């Protein structure tokens, strides 16, 4: 056992508990049905006793565990409580789970779904919360039975004193335990003793999902609630000129038409306060269809944006003035710039050795440019939020990945102290980074304030797709110098984008080469961007791992062995000060996928396959993809994924995430793009924006994990990037066609 100091003093715990369970918060738990599950639970207890802010024990031995982080489909609502339950040492069948509201005082400042960090960041505190409660229950039992606490053992929620033969469940001691001091130190279990962590547990919301219970933000309906929608400029680079409220105000059910300014010009915008259209028209009505109809009928005029400067703060950083370019942009111009940026200044991001010399002396240079378009997140549930604002308090409820930042933005905008704002989290119909940017939360609060009524702001699919925080358009040029003896002597990478570069200059193959140069460029744009599942990595992997494949071929090497060779160098004799990856773990996933896919035996079976691997969000993933071509169309027979994410908390759920990341990666590489003509997004719904569908998904996905006792690392994002390159490399081996420009569907059909 390892001993950990508990962080919270007794007083803090009491304060935190009262915050977490304050009558006001519980009374607004409209999504209360969220807490049951398909497991057959005992009857509910008569009394609950709170042992700390994360959990309470019922008099019949049932436990309720709070899940602090937003649930976007990454399954933290199941896997985080598993950490608590493990150390509480209770039967998982006797655990109820509740989604916690925002409570920074209790849960710290990482109540956020982002960066694949939910499990990693809570690994110690959540287990500690369980262990602390267990120890308090033991102390209560020891005093009730008048025996030394160290003679007691627990198992599945039962405390036993072997010597006297006494034994009883936690519920018997819960009240007594709730009055005890929080112990200063607790012991945490050894991995070998885990009964819950590492053992698959089904989604605690599973039954509610398959029976259609109200779980999501859009499912919030409250007495007196109105529905609000926005009408935003049709093009990036346009702003509101005028609107004619009389064109819709008399339509059935319509209550009001007005404008809002999401952010104040005087206040600096926070990092998550991203909006392309600060001023918008709002239509409020009684029901959704009435507002949709009014939205279509509204007479509104737009004009070109003039030069705009906004005050914007970075991650906790100081605010700087950011100038938004004017003009109406076109994908045709973007695409030219992604390939030819020779007029732009390049910034050196990393240099090792003397790459210039290596290229000068090279016998052969392999040079390839890869590009990818803007992409919309397209969560299945469009953006929405509920707000009920009065003079005294603000209640916000819905799907947002960054509740704390959203609360801060609303506090600033409404000039309301944070203490008067409550934020409740619904289950989210997808996130992928889109819901990190909660400007829609501020919009909902402003609308409710104006209406003096509870409202639900709903984006139509078209709003959601054409008013986003997109994945930028990216470009990566790779160059490799090969000497006359066919040795790789240098790699040069230039990463650029509109308006952000995808470059990760300290990632592999940096560190594996004596001579290495990484440079970057950007072109500003008025198209709003944001984090998108595995930001930057989502394209880096595709370009880098496609290039390494072609490079291996040029060198006459097996692509998988070539990567292992580079990683061996990086492991044994790394180049440079800072390499962001662990070469051993990186090689580990390649070795595992090599074994599982029987790499090398492919010639016998006539398989057309590609390999790729990538590191991001502290985890490592390698893929082998097998395809056959049906004309220009790749048919994906099977995908192997080998993952190293440290300890796997909930294996089947992690497999599900890896499967989903694989499918998403294939869809990204093959199909989706958001293009612009005169600033107008050309795709505004799923008839034009192509998302991967059932028949385009792989027939089989085999996921395997490297056995590890390293603390858990990211799982939501890492399985998504490398499969894109593994697919491109497989298509090459099946068709002889190298693919450089996403979405591949265009190149395949040309």
């Amino acid at each position, binding site marked *: 056992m390892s001993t950990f100091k508990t962080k919270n003093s007794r007083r803090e715990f009491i304060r935190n508990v009262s915050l977490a369970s304050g009558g006001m918060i519980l009374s607004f738990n409209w999504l209360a049905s969220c807490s049951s599950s398909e497991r057959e639970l005992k009857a509910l207890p008569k009394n609950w006793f709170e042992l700390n802010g994360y959990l309470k024990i019922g008099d019949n031995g049932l436990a309720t565990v709070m899940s602090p982080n937003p649930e976007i489909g990454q399954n933290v609502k199941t896997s985080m409580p598993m950490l608590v339950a493990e150390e509480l040492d209770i039967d998982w069948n006797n655990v109820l789970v509740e989604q916690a509201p925002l409570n920074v005082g209790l849960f710290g400042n990482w109540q956020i779904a982002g960066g694949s960090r939910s499990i990693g960041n809570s690994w110690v505190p959540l287990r500690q919360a369980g262990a602390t409660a267990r120890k308090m229950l033991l102390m209560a039992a020891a005093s009730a039975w008048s025996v030394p606490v160290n003679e007691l053992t627990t198992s599945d929620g039962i405390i036993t004193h072997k010597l006297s033969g006494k034994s009883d469940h936690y519920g018997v001691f819960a009240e007594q335990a709730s009055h005890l001091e929080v112990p200063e130190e607790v012991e945490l279990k050894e991995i070998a003793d885990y009964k819950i962590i590492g053992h698959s547990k089904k989604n605690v919301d599973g039954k509610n999902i*398959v029976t259609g219970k109200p779980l*999501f933000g859009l499912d919030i309906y409250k007495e007196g609630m109105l529905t609000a929608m926005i009408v935003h400029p049709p093009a990036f680079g346009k702003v509101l000129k005028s609107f004619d409220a009389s064109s819709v105000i008399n339509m059935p059910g319509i209550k009001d038409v007005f404008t809002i300014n999401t952010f104040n010009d005087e206040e600096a915008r926070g990092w998550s306060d991203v909006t392309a259209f600060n001023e918008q028209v709002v239509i409020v009505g009684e029901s959704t269809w009435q507002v949709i109809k009014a939205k279509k009928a509204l007479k509104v005029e737009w004009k070109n944006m003039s030069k705009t400067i906004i005050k914007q703060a970075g991650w906790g950083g100081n605010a700087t003035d950011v100038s938004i370019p004017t003009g109406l942009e076109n994908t045709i111009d973007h695409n030219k710039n992604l390939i030819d940026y020779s007029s732009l200044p390049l910034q050196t991001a990393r240099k090792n050795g003397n790459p210039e010399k290596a290229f000068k002396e090279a016998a052969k240079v392999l040079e390839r440019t890869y590009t990818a378009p803007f992409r919309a997140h397209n969560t299945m549930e469009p953006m929405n939020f509920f707000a009920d604002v009065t003079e005294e308090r603000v209640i916000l409820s819905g799907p947002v990945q960054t509740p704390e930042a959203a609360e801060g933005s609303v506090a600033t905008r409404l000039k309301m102290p944070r203490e008067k704002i409550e934020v409740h989290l619904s289950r989210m119909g997808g996130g992928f980074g889109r819901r990190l940017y909660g400007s829609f939360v501020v919009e909902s609060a402003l609308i409710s304030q104006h209406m003096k009524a509870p409202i639900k702001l709903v984006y139509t699919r078209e709003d959601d797709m054409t008013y986003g925080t997109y994945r930028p358009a990216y470009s990566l040029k790779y160059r490799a110098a090969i000497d006359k003896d066919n040795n790789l002597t240098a790699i040069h990478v230039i990463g650029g984008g509109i308006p952000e570069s995808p470059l990760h200059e300290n990632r592999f193959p940096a560190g594996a080469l004596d001579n290495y140069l990484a440079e970057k460029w950007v072109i500003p744009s008025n198209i709003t961007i944001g984090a998108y599942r595995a930001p930057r990595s989502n394209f880096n992997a595709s370009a880098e791992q496609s290039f390494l494949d072609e490079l291996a071929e040029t060198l006459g090497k097996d692509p998988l062995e070539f990567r292992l060779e580079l990683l061996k160098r990086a492991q044994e004799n790394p180049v440079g000060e800072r390499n962001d990856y662990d070469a051993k773990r990186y090689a580990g996933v390649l070795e595992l996928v090599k074994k599982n896919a029987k790499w090398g035996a492919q010639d016998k079976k006539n398989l057309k396959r590609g390999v790729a691997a990538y590191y991001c969000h502290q985890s490592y993933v390698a893929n082998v993809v097998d395809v056959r071509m049906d004309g220009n169309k790749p048919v994906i027979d099977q995908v192997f994924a080998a993952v190293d994410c440290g300890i796997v908390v909930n294996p089947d759920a992690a497999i*599900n995430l890896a499967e989903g990341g694989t499918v998403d990666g294939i869809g990204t590489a093959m199909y989706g793009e958001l293009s612009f003509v005169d600033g107008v997004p050309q795709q505004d719904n799923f*008839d034009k924006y192509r998302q991967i569908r*059932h028949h385009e998904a792989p027939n089989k996905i085999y996921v395997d994990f490297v056995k590890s006792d390293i603390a858990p690392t990211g799982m939501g994002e890492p399985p998504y990037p490398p499969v894109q390159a593994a697919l491109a490399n497989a298509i090459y081996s099946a068709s002889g066609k190298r693919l450089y420009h996403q979405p591949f569907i265009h190149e395949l059909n040309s």
Partner: protein
Amino acid sequence: MAHFTLNVNGASHQVDVEPDTPILWVLRDHLNLVGTKYGCGIAQCGACTIHLNGMATRACQLQVSMVGNSEITTIEGLSENGEHPVQQAWLEEDVPQCGYCQTGQIMSAVSLLKNNPHPSDEQIEMGMSGNLCRCGTYTRIKKAIKRASNN
């Protein structure tokens, strides 16, 4: 506004709405049946799938005035408490990630299996291709449909 009497999940309901209101919004806004989801509004995602006289139908495309006496079944009416074999198969395979698309997927799968109790892989893929899952649970959905078809 006009009065309509609808037959939903075996019970009769009165609503007072515009005649062109899609059944999707009647179910969600007026009948408190929110298991039927909005995803696109243009018959492209399948999130709103219901059964009309037993046939899978996109609720976003069906105006309330067209329904008449037809029987509407929503996910809430598929079974009392999730006992339908397709729902059970979904739970056994632990299909959902975010879960938003899954009620529509289930309604489509039920209809698929009704017309073809033992579909091939290809028939499943084609039969389900109108239902998007942004989280990419397609391989699990296929497994769940096969499991349900074997039961």
